[in-house]
């Protein structure tokens, strides 16, 4: 999975791209895995005052070791507040959470996510997946949803089999009509090939940055719907030496997310 000859992996590139999106002095609800590595990296670089919330109730901890469960003790070290799940959900519902990261089995051009099932019959799905968990809640309530997902035609589909978590639903104004808070929604999609944003008029996904070495054709070939490219298409910045050092030595020294060196 190593990127073209450089001394970083694709996973590391994506984590760094995610970290760059997080601004200082903002709040983020973070799950386990790459998003957490990204948030910890952001705290160690440009966003030391990023406030991290974990879904099960830990608020603004000082993370000493990479947690592997959103309810685990490693999420709770030196926290400001030990509360419960609804304190996190109500903080989100009050509009106090800026960022969240989600994944999924399928995503469509409007950023709707499916993590419930593959198939057309709800009662007898071809594949049963975990379901919403907190994903629907954070996709509904946080200001900016960032999706991290592998880029292939099975995942980038014209219509998801099940809208587990709302993106822009069926287009402009649909979230507001459904009753979701105005101004919230998908912000970026970080895939294994590129970083996508959403057109502010059509609410449809478009490519903003290609990862180093990736071509437009590769993206098109691996996407199941029409995916335009932004006028000022950029290249995803490569991780810096400092970022890689922090990621490997401090954030994930055991290589649980970024893999063993």
């Amino acid at each position, binding site marked *: 999975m190593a990127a073209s000859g450089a001394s970083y992996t694709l996973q590391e590139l994506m984590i760094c791209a995610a970290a760059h999106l997080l601004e200082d002095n903002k709040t983020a609800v973070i799950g386990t895995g790459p998003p957490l590595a990204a948030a910890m990296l952001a705290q160690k670089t440009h966003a030391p005052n990023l406030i991290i919330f974990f879904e099960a*109730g830990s608020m603004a901890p000082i993370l000493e070791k990479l947690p592997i469960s959103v309810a685990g*003790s490693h999420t709770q070290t030196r926290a400001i507040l030990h509360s419960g799940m*609804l304190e996190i959900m109500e903080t989100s519902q009050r509009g106090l959470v800026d960022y969240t990261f989600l994944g999924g089995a399928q995503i469509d051009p409007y950023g*709707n996510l499916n993590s419930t099932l593959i198939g057309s019959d709800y009662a007898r799905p071809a594949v049963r997946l975990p*379901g*919403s968990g*907190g994903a629907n*809640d954070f996709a509904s309530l946080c200001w900016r949803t960032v999706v991290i997902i592998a880029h292939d035609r099975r995942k980038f589909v014209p219509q998801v089999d099940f809208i587990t978590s709302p993106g822009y639903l069926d287009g402009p104004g649909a979230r507001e009509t459904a009753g*979701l808070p105005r101004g919230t929604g998908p912000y970026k999609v970080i895939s294994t090939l590129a970083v996508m944003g959403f057109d502010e008029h059509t609410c449809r996904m478009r490519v903003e940055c290609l990862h180093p070495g990736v071509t437009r054709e590769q993206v098109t070939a691996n996407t199941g719907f029409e995916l335009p490219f932004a006028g000022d298409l950029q290249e995803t910045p490569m991780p810096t030496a400092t970022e890689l050092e922090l990621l490997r030595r401090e954030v994930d020294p055991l290589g649980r997310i970024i893999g063993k060196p």
Partner: protein
Amino acid sequence: LHEIVRRRKKNLGFSGHSTTHDFQILAAGGVIDRCDIAYVVGLEMRGLSPNGRRLMESGQVRTAEWSNAGLAWRYKAAAMGVPFLPVRTMLGSDTMRYSSAQLIECPFTGATLLAVPALYPDVAIIHVHQCDLYGNAQIDGISIVDQDLARAARRVIVTTERLVSSEQIRSQPGRTSIPFWLVDAVCLTPFGSYPGEMPYEYTSDERHFGEWLEAEKDPETFERFLDRYIYGVKSFEEYLELIGGWARLAELQQQEPLKRSL
């Protein structure tokens, strides 16, 4: 939970959040035939439960979808003593369409809101750090949904790491989460959260979680696994002996990152 499976109960209802290992155990025994779920067959970074998936893909379990917050607010409605709560989540999604929630209009703002109905579990089993003989229970660290769950359920069973005196409870009333008038039974169950963790007490046993997931991959292996760890033992204590006894448990205590300074 193991005892519930050993008795081979059938047709229980189940509702849960990310209580995935609980679901794994109950699903293993074929105990469940309907559930309200938010997140069940996944174990976060540990992977998905193959047996749980087989069960749900077979259509043997009737499910209703909820988000974690939707389900937690349903407990909260019950805990507050109202038949529903208005919320701003799940709107517009299939998660909403496959739930039993209803759209309503706010009488003040005209906004569209989702009404989630109160959920009153028949029985809640809640594991705590300490409680007294009457069931006055204190939980350290995050509480997830335990406080609302204790108030929503018709019957509450508290399992506890240790028993303390009522005077000790009364000397720190700010730490009490569940008062005795909500509690029907108390079980002294040291390491009751195993193989999960108990903040401030012991960490989770990732090795044993790995064995479960590995065993579940093949139905026959899984059958032998269940025979060994669940049907083959008489009590939770015997199970703890099998996984390595006090030596292993002491390791997990030492590895717990939260130190007590309460």
